[in-house]
């Protein structure tokens, strides 16, 4: 079915995809260039050459790599902690109804509050430095991943569990052989959504009096209206985001390629 199509036009399909991507990039650069020329937007959008000239400048200032490293550590730690907490909480919510009844409203409530709003409270409690950054990202990623995994587990097709049971599976077999693989796609979706939330929470996380970081640097560059390095940093965040997403999508294809439907 799908493999026939790939055989017929596999190479040209791939080439066409790359062509469109290149076209999209070119169009973006044109729009950017137009913005850099228009008087009303030129101050916010220095042209592409000026922005990329900032790479050596920021390296020379000794901040570029330090910022990237610092942000990656905060995001990585917070995200990992968020996942490690979200997985058991989601399983507990799916398994034990009273627990869900109590915890789910909290999660739904906090989820709609922008993290920037509760940052001051975290700083007051945890002080400045790495700790509050990790906490903010942990909270934000935990919320989205917990809800996503929980929704996935409760939507597992019940006939699969029934089928396993009539085929002789005991509770332990059902957990390992049915529930675990059936929830893997949702876990991976959660991992992908969590990564995206981790990055979008970066600015809030690093407004906790961070000493370095991509988000912190953007705010500090803003004090001097240094728009060219700001734009550079914004683009770097975008590149990190899309790279992480691509890696997770590859993982999804490798691990859950058996799925009937591809989800968003």
């Amino acid at each position, binding site marked *: *079915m799908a493999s026939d199509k790939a055989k017929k036009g596999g190479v040209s399909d791939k080439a066409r995809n790359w062509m469109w991507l290149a076209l999209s990039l070119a169009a973006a650069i044109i729009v950017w260039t137009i913005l850099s020329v228009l008087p009303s937007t030129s101050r916010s959008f220095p042209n592409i050459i000026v922005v990329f000239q900032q790479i050596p400048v920021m390296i020379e200032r000794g901040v570029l790599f330090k910022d990237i490293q610092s942000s990656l550590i905060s995001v990585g730690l917070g995200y990992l902690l968020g996942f490690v907490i979200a997985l058991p909480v989601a399983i507990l919510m799916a398994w034990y109804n009273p627990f869900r009844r109590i915890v789910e409203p909290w999660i739904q409530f906090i989820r709609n509050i922008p993290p920037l709003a509760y940052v001051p409270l975290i700083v007051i409690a945890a002080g400045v430095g790495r700790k509050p950054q990790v906490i903010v990202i942990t909270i934000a990623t935990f919320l989205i991943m917990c809800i996503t995994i929980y929704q996935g587990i409760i939507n597992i*097709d019940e*006939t*699969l569990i*029934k*089928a*396993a*049971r*009539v*085929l*002789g*599976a005991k509770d332990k*077999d059902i957990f390992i*052989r*049915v529930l675990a*693989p*059936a929830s*893997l796609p949702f876990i991976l979706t959660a991992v992908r959504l969590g990564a995206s939330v981790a990055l979008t929470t970066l600015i809030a996380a690093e407004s906790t009096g961070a000493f370095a970081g991509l988000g912190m640097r953007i705010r500090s560059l803003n004090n001097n209206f240094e728009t060219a390095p700001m734009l550079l940093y914004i683009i770097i965040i975008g590149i990190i985001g899309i790279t992480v997403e691509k890696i997770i999508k590859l993982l999804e294809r490798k691990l*859950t*390629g*058996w*799925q*009937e439907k591809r989800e968003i």
Partner: protein
Amino acid sequence: MAGEERDIKVVIEDVRKTYQGRTGEVVALNGVNLNIADNEFVTVVGPSGCGKSTLLNIIAGLLEPTSGRVLCNGQEVHGTGKDRGVVFQQYALFPWLTVKKNVLFPLDMRGIKGFAAEEIAMKYIKMVDLEKFADHYPKELSGGMKQRVAIARAYAANPEILLMDEPFGALDAQTRTQLQQELLDTWEKERKTCFFITHDVDEALILGQRVVIMSARPGRIKEIVDVDIPYPRNQETKMDPHFLELKNHIWSQVYQEYLEVRK
């Protein structure tokens, strides 16, 4: 059953099942009594909502009756058991396992592993004519092929009785006819006790030695029709005057129940 004396495999004794619905208690089944003989092929027809799936789930041990009981080989049924296999309408294949690994699943649950298991699995995959697809995932198969895998998997579990819940209900007419024929051929060879639910009168008649007609809400057994048409049966059997006579009778009985449901 044409005067033949056979061992009783399953006894359904005064089974009643009620649910708590939004508007109060719903009686899904009431006073259901039925004996299924060893090696017998029993089919059940009835309008949707007559509780025929509920009855199957109770025999399978996936549901407990509110009152009454089910005996299988003289043992009261509580929970699922290795003596009973189920084929579901929605196939219920594990999408993360290949065809072969799906069929291996019940063997693994019975502690049969390695080459012995492989051999049994391939035997049943061959039986349903899918050896070319042994390493494919369910998503790569058509509906008919998926249901064949589910049947192979149920056979690999080697149950004494096969419970089938509208297994061909989601398939197109041609595939359905083909799978009916395959099931008939397999049953004639293996003579495994079958309890088969359908809403298709033709299907119930071509397959079953007895057709159980169920009435709507609350589900009760309305009539049991002996199908005294000899095997081997095939699609031409459907033209047989006696077949048509029985079909007319069953259809009029089922139709009355449809009208009841619509009231």
